[in-house]
């Protein structure tokens, strides 16, 4: 052994260590890869040796190579070997390597479980620490599940160093194993008040991270955090807490009101910029959450803006950046306050730092007004010209468009100007946002009727310079603009000055180099344009010109027929055939223009992009089912041009075969449909086919704008937006003068169509140059107002959306390893009294500290009553609000079911608490300590205690854990477990819980208690399924098979088994018959036994306790699609709050609001039914009004509630 050791050391001497490796790599600059592969070979050799030191050295080198990008996963097993070394030096190397390269896919990771557990419980804090650090990087769901309990124990470690690491790692554990959150949460919460600031900070860190994702579950912690905020001096902690409040305030406006003052104080007092900045941020969040009901909130806004201005003006670029960032948040709700700092922000646009410029751009969005828009955009356009680097330029481009188009072009007074801006933007090379510009062009042209003429003129210029556009940008991005240009010119062709010229431009050979979808639009719109040319020429009596156009089409269209793009090809060949027909007709001098243009008749209405999605599916409609047999092609009658077209074909296409016609027709129809489908503006079901655009209604209303400007329309690509700025100024000036005049003469002048008669130059007064008939986008009737489609269903944090106030179910306990269980406390009944007495000296001291702590906690608990804390006027002490009551009950229960294998200390406390005698003096002492407290409280507690004794079968009572927190519970404890069946051997109690994840599953937890002297084994539960309710059985078993209970019961022991049932309809209560069969074995032998039972699934068991804010509740009630029912129960003596607590507990409701003796409650079923209750208490009666999405369910629920109330 010694020899080997020496040999190992000598080997080791000649090995390279990490430094040698690094030096070697640096000396082999030319053939680095070769050198490294050599080294890896050496490392492989080293890993084969026995010496752990050699291995560790090898692993250390591998870690370095990993950083350089080499995959070292092949050495995973060796890494584990090094991790399990007994020396800290090596262990650390191993854990570091593991943290760098292990992940969920590493298959050997499961081998580490026991090693890590060992290290976690190591006496050396360094071993434990290094294991925790490593684990935090590679924890997997399996590791999290298996180790959660060990880590939780470490949270109460004596060394703060370990405590803080254990607390931090819990976040990772929660992420990987969400089920551990609820059982671990009470202790995590405790750590918020840990004496060590590091541990406290870690706990704050974890809870903030949790709350950020699911803030509503952490609202009840607000008072505790508030206390921390006002007491802590650690800026890190403060920042985290303040950030957390920022996330909480949107959920509870009252919280915001409470926060404003301390935050403002902090803003005034702190010298730390980071803290100041976060305070400002949270104040902003508060102000956003508050509606304008705050009296002095303009002062707060002013303070924020003023502080932010200081930041922005600072020479430190970091502060400038953050200032702008925060400013943009204010902007959303208080644009006015920000607008006064326009100068500053415009200045930031010129900053050399791109990050700052981008932030300033964001701000500009909200700063524009009718007055300033042109000026700001002009400035931005200048930046666009200067900008180097496409990303920033693209950003500018999108911002310009955003700014101009915001809230339905609210700020644009002159759309000609806007169109020319858009056209100017098309000159940008290499932009990715061609489609954005195109979309704007289309949108404006369609929705602003008055601008069409101008838009068409501009677009035709664009089309004319198309080769330029397309070639200079190598088909990227910007050519999308041609899509819009072609469409606008085609659709509104009647406005074209020189249709022939445009037609020619659209048919140039170069067009075929454009992307397919643009060509397709070209082809389609060529036909529209052609139709309108025919119309004009025929009216003008110039058949030659019309024939010329036909000729042009016949010449040029074949180039599209040959296109590789199917869409283009199809449309082109359709249109080619059509034009050939027209040619024939023209030869016979038949007028065709009317019929041809009828193809494209119809008014366009803009439709909201989400309109289709928002159409509610009528009840009972299955969209996937065939209504009739699949129809043949010819049945469709939904095409509006069909009749016209069909006739025409019939009349004039005699030589053709009828079938060919059909086919051709179908194809054209298809092409048309395609066109319509791809064109969002083309949805219109009932057009009047004879109407033409010229005589469309509303056109008369379009003001004839005297564009007395000298815009050189025909110069390609030269619309000068700047001219508009001048013109606009003049126009406004004139307008003002005019108004003044009008005012003097009190006479209406109708030179231009304008509205507004106030003489002030306020923003809203500037009348637009065009009457902007901005058509709002159409939405279907009774569209669903849902915005839920934006939620990401794959969010990993969703699993952590867990109600933390709900009582902890037995099933939720963290799995505990069996052999560790041996250390776990024995049931208290059996605990030797002498043990307590033997240690009585020590425990007493601890008891004292414990008591102090419990007192503290109690105060904390008072604070837990969020409503109480938030309300400005404290409710009378005798009747705390019902929410408080429920919170307390829940707290009590969750405390009761704290994990079993706690540290020694807690256990002793528990024993003491459980012990009546130990308890009694405590009560006395407490009451002397707080003389002011009501004696009643004590009595109540005494009662409480008695009731506990009276009902020893209660689930909680059998629990050995009780840690003092719930002692002053004013409410009798309740259990949701009901008796199921009992015989000489076994007693069964059960509880049904809806599943949070599955909408049709419930979990039945059955507690089996063996009260015989036999060992019960081979237990099997068989249930007769009903149509509606079925038991989930292991795969492959038949309906009649039972489900085995996964444990045996020694005498006197109870355990819980869970069974999953799937339910279809939940509106009615269900009963299932079942049998428990088992073998009872004692000294005399074994007997087969049976116990029949009936499982009762009440409607309440399908409900999930769901908190609901009063606003949402009110909205729900207003929505009106809930059915109503009510009950009344007489002879109730119980206090209202107990009553509510009972309803909450047994029927899974939560209190929304309570006023005096009237409370509203809410719950939700696993299938999403909303249930609202209004509970009113009279003299000795209680009436319950219910509203629910399902009438049957409501009826049944109310019956159950009645049953509960009747017992009160």
């Amino acid at each position, binding site marked *: 052994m010694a020899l080997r050791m020496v040999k190992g050391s000598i080997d080791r001497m000649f090995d390279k260590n990490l430094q040698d490796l690094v030096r070697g790599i640096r000396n082999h600059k030319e053939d680095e890869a070769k050198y490294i592969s050599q080294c890896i070979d050496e490392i492989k050799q080293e890993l084969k040796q026995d010496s752990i030191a050699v291995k560790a050295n090898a692993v250390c080198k591998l870690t370095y190579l990993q950083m350089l*990008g080499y995959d070292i996963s092949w050495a995973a097993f060796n890494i584990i070997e090094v991790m399990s070394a007994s020396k800290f030096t090596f262990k650390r190397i191993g854990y570091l390597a593991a943290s760098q390269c292990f992940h969920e896919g590493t298959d050997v990771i499961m081998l580490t479980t026991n090693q890590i557990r060992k290290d976690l419980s190591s006496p050396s804090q360094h071993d434990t620490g290094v294991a925790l650090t490593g684990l935090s990087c590679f924890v997997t769901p399996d590791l999290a599940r298996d180790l959660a309990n060990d880590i939780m124990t470490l949270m109460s470690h004596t060394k703060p160093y370990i405590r803080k690491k254990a607390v931090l*790692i819990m976040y990772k554990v929660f992420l990987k194993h969400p089920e551990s959150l609820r059982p671990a949460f009470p202790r995590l919460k405790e750590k918020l008040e840990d004496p060590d600031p590091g541990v406290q900070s870690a706990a704050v860190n974890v809870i903030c991270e949790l709350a950020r994702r699911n803030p509503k579950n952490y609202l009840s912690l607000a008072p505790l955090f508030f206390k921390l905020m006002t007491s802590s001096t650690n800026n890190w902690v403060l920042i985290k807490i303040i950030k957390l409040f920022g996330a909480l305030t949107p959920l509870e406006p009252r919280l915001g009101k409470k926060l404003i003052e301390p935050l403002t104080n902090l803003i005034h007092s702190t010298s730390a910029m980071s803290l100041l900045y976060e305070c400002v941020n949270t104040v902003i969040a508060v102000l956003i959450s508050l509606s304008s009901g705050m009296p002095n909130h303009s002062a707060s806004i002013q303070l924020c803006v003023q502080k932010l201005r200081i930041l922005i003006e600072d020479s430190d670029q970091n502060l400038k950046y953050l200032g702008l960032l925060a400013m943009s948040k204010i902007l959303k709700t208080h644009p006015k306050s920000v607008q006064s700092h326009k100068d500053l922000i415009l200045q930031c646009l010129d900053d050399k730092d791109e990050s700052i410029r981008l932030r300033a751009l964001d701000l500009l969005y909200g700063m524009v007004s009718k007055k300033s828009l042109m000026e700001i955009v002009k400035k931005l356009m200048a930046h666009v010209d200067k900008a180097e680097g496409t990303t920033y330029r693209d950003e500018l481009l999108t911002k310009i468009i955003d700014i101009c188009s915001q809230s339905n072009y609210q700020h644009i007074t002159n759309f000609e100007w806007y169109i020319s801006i858009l056209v100017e933007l098309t000159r940008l090379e290499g932009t990715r946002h061609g489609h954005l510009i195109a979309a704007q062009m289309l949108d404006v042209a369609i929705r602003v009727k008055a601008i069409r003429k101008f838009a068409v003129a501009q677009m035709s210029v664009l089309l004319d310079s198309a080769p330029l556009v397309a070639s200079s940008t190598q088909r990227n991005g910007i050519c999308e603009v041609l899509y819009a240009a072609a469409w606008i010119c085609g659709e509104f062709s009647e406005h074209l000055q020189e249709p022939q010229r445009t037609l020619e431009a659209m048919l140039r050979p170069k067009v075929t180099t454009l992307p397919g979808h643009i060509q397709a639009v070209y082809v389609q719109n060529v036909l529209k344009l052609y139709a309108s040319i025919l119309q004009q020429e025929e009216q003008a009596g110039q058949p030659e010109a019309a024939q010329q156009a036909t000729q042009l089409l016949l010449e040029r269209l074949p180039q599209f027929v040959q296109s590789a793009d199917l869409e283009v090809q199809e449309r082109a060949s359709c249109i080619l055939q059509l034009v050939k027909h027209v040619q024939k007709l023209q030869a016979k001098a038949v007028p065709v223009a009317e019929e041809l243009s009828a193809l494209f008749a119809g008014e366009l209405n803009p439709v909201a992009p989400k309109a289709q999605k928002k159409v509610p599916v009528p009840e009972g409609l299955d969209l996937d089912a065939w209504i009739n047999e699949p129809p043949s092609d010819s049945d469709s009658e939904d095409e509006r041009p069909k009749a016209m077209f069909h006739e025409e074909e019939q009349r004039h296409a005699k030589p053709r075969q009828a079938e060919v016609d059909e086919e051709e027709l179908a194809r054209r129809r298809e092409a048309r449909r395609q066109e319509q489908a791809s064109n969002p503006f083309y949805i219109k079901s009932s057009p009047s086919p004879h109407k033409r655009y010229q005589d469309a209604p509303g056109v008369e209303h379009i003001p004839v704008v005297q564009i007395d400007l000298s815009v050189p329309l025909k110069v390609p690509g030269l619309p000068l937006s700047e001219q508009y700025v001048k013109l606009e100024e003049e126009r406004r000036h004139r307008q003002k003068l005019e108004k003044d005049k009008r005012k003097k003469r009190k006479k209406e002048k109708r030179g231009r169509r304008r509205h507004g008669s106030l003489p002030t130059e306020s923003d809203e007064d500037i009348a637009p140059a065009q009457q902007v008939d901005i058509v709002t986008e159409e939405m279907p009737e009774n569209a669903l107002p849902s915005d839920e489609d934006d939620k990401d269903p794959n969010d990993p944090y969703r699993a952590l959306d867990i109600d933390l106030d709900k009582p902890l179910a037995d099933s939720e306990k963290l799995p505990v390893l069996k052999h560790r269980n041996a250390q776990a406390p024995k049931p208290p009944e059996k605990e030797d009294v002498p043990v307590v007495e033997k240690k009585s000296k020590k425990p007493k001291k601890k008891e004292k500290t414990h008591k102090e702590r419990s007192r503290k906690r109690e105060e904390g608990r008072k604070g837990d009553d969020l409503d109480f804390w938030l309300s400005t006027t404290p409710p009378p002490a005798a009747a705390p609000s019902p929410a408080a009551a429920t919170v307390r009950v829940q707290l009590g229960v969750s405390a009761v079911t704290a994990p079993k294998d706690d540290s020694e200390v807690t256990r002793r406390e528990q024993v003491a608490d459980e012990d009546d005698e130990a308890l009694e003096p405590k009560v006395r002492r407490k009451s002397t300590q707080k003389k002011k407290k009501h004696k009643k409280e004590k009595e109540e507690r005494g009662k409480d205690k008695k009731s506990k004794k009276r009902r020893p079968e209660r689930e909680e009572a059998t629990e050995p854990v009780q840690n003092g927190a719930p002692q002053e519970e004013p409410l009798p404890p309740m259990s949701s477990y009901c008796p199921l069946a009992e015989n000489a051997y076994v007693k069964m109690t059960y509880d049904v819980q809806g599943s949070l994840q599955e909408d049709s599953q419930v979990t039945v937890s059955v507690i089996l208690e063996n009260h015989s002297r036999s060992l019960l084994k081979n237990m099997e539960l068989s249930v007769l399924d009903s149509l509606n309710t079925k038991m989930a059985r292991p795969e492959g078993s038949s309906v009649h098979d039972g489900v085995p209970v996964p444990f045996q019961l020694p005498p006197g022991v109870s355990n819980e088994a869970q069974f999953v049932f799937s339910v279809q309809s939940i509106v009615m209560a269900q009963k299932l018959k079942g049998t428990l069969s088992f073998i009872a074995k004692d000294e005399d032998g074994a007997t087969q036994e049976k116990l029949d039972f009936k499982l009762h699934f009440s409607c309440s068991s399908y409900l999930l306790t769901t908190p609901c804010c009063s606003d949402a509740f009110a909205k729900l009630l207003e929505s009106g699609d809930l059915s109503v029912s009510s009950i009344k129960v007489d002879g109730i003596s119980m206090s209202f709050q107990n009553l509510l607590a009972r309803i909450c507990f047994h029927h899974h409701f939560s209190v929304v609001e309570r006023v005096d003796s009237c409370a509203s409650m809410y719950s939700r079923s696993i299938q999403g039914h909303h249930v609202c209750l209004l509970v009113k208490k009279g003299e000795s009666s209680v009436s319950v009004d219910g509203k629910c999405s399902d009438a049957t369910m409501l009826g049944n629920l109310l019956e159950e509630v009645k049953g509960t109330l009747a017992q009160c």
Partner: protein
Amino acid sequence: MIKAILIFNNHGKPRLSKFYQPYSEDTQQQIIRETFHLVSKRDENVCNFLEGGLLIGGSDNKLIYRHYATLYFVFCVDSSESELGILDLIQVFVETLDKCFENVCELDLIFHVDKVHNILAEMVMGGMVLETNMNEIVTQIDAQNKLEKSEQITYTGLFCIGQDFSRAGLAGAPARAVSAVKNMNLPEIPRNINIGDISIKVPNLPSFK
């Protein structure tokens, strides 16, 4: 949450990489390259925040970095971290390195990346800030070094791992390199987060190569 911590030099050579989300080695290298590309082209006197490292998760994330002499320290964080706080954390990190290595320079990081990892592990754990107090961190590191030394003595006197040996290694480094190092002076700053009031002047050193 901190998503990643990267240290690389002015030429983009990684000196330390710590990812708190799993990525393949190739992706890691790509991220380092991309980050270097983003950071290196920025002037000295612009802000230390950068949006849109495209590779590490979405728009919520920011790059927060500091440039010391030849090294870039980059933290990729999401919106739950305070920007100025992280800047301060970087400062704490560098100061701690300075204390543990006694006048830290790039060479220390090159040859003792494992030690740098150990120091970092006492500050940031699994992407969350563990400790911000430098003295606390240094105490832990010292205690660990002591433990390590004691283990070496009991193991064998023939060779040693760690400080002594590595110093010997350093002696073997090219002489001109040694002359270029050891002068990465760091200013003393007050402990509390107080960034706004401090301007850190890092001497512009001849870049080390």
